[in-house]
């Protein structure tokens, strides 16, 4: 069966104003809205569109994390994924551990394509897709803004600093999504009800033979430095005078 595997991560919703805990141990997450990482939403949307075009038969979503990640898997099922895999893991899941777990799922499911978000908006690491492609010894096409599938290959347009780069990769491959790839659909209420009946399998890291290992210690979180309060000017002439006095013109 032609399958697409999509990675999902539970993160603090992008609309939440982030506040660092006073003791520096993290950011405040109590009572804060949690969501699917926005780049993963885009990854799932792309997988669903590929399936709707008849180029894939099944979309599987997977996550590696604690029990409450299942909420986000249910959201992904409501959006249209066929089934979900939850790899139970507590504590900080580093990209290498997530990638090793995903590789085990790839070995079981044999997908033709793996689509992940380019980064999670909490830790902003931006590594898992590339690490997975390295471990799997398969192509990677990061920061995709367009994906065209044909028999055995994918043509991917990437958003790079210089502009747009197009690569051709053999399948299977790992693709990571950028913002402009698509606009994810909204989840409809009846679909949320239907999603409750879709299969969600729970596994553990140890059952997959992956060691939960944290290589980087999170020492301290600090709030970013505040900028000094600025001045207001009333017209263009005053603005230029202010810039001149700062030696900027």
């Amino acid at each position, binding site marked *: 069966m032609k399958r697409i595997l999509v990675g999902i991560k539970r993160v603090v919703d992008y609309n939440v*104003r*982030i506040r660092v805990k006073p003791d520096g141990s993290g*950011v405040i997450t109590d009572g804060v809205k949690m969501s699917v990482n926005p780049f993963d939403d885009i990854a799932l949307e792309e997988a669903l569109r590929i399936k709707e075009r008849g180029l894939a038969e099944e979309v599987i979503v997977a996550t590696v994390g604690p029990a409450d990640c299942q909420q986000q898997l249910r959201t992904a099922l409501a959006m249209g994924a066929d089934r979900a895999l939850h790899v139970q893991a507590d504590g900080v899941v*580093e*990209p*290498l551990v997530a990638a090793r777990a995903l590789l085990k799922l790839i070995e079981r499911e044999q997908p033709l394509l793996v689509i992940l978000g380019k980064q999670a*908006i*909490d830790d*902003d*690491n*931006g*590594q898992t897709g*590339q*690490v*997975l*492609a*390295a471990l799997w*010894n398969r*192509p*990677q096409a*990061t*920061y995709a*803004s367009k994906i065209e599938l044909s028999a055995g290959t994918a043509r991917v347009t*990437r*958003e790079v*600093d*210089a*502009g*747009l*780069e*197009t*690569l051709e*990769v*053999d399948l299977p491959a790992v693709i990571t999504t950028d*913002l*402009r790839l698509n606009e994810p659909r909204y989840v409809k209420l009846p679909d949320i009800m239907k999603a409750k009946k879709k299969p969600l399998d729970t596994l553990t890291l140890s059952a997959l033979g992956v060691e939960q290992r944290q*290589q*980087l*210690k*999170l*020492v*301290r*979180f*600090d*709030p*970013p430095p505040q*900028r*000094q309060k*600025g*001045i*207001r*000017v*009333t*017209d*263009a*002439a005053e*603005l*230029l005078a202010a*810039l001149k006095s700062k030696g*900027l013109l």
Partner: protein
Amino acid sequence: MNSRVLIVAEHEGAKLNPSTAKCVTCARGIPGAQITIVVCAVDAAAVAAQAAQLSGVARVLCVENPANAHALAAVWAPQVLAIAAPFSHILGPSTTFGKDLMARIAGLLGAPQVSDIMAIESATRFRRPVYAGNALLTVESSGEGQLVGTVRTASFQAAAGGGAAPIEKAAVSVELPTHTRFVSVSAARSDRPDLQTARRVISGGRALGSAEGFKILYRLADKLGAAVGASRAAVDAGYAPNEMQVGQTGKIIAPELYVAVGISGAIQHLTGIKDARTIVAINKDGEAPIFEVADIGLVGDLFQIIPEIERLL
């Protein structure tokens, strides 16, 4: 304690990208760092010569292969891996080039990666932004094994020139994959300064109203010798090309002067400019969040103010 640092050079054609000189400055912050730059290329001579001049570099290694014509991570990573063994730290810039490549190298090494290094506290302790820069995280590695890092270029000055490091060829014979092929790149050619390295940047938001509306910014930018950027809203609306986007999901920049025109100041945009020395905001909405970070604010109609500034200059 000595650290041996390998920096993977970013280059286009025969020209070293300034991001590499910023990585050198970052690497010099590691106590006792001995810095090697590796240049992967078809013919590395020109780029290696530029890298050798960077102050603080001890050695430049050339890895030449006909397959290196384009920076394909799947092709370059095994070649870097082949020479990586003696190094404690392997760094690259946190540009789309470096982010794509370095994490693949980290995967091959099974090593941890510190993304977006903004400050070095020791050979094992680093600071980096998380949550789109709304928190700064200090991380520490055990010091055992190798560490990969990407360097937030906006946080470091470019290393000065004047050096003369020896240039050596590295004999690398590893099998390279053919499963990833370069097709094309389309870049909007511009005579204006590069957005990432410009001293002055003028950016426009959705309030410019159209691609036509952006022309008043281009005219002012040309008069000031500035680069032109855009907010995500303006890019999404099709007023400006994608490579002009400034922000957490676009380019993170640190010019001396940043002028935000008709930009409300979404958090992801502010993240991309917070290292700018002076921020000027011009917006008709005096309550826009951009004014919270602006050093100089001007409330008014940009279509009157911008031509007025141009006239007064």
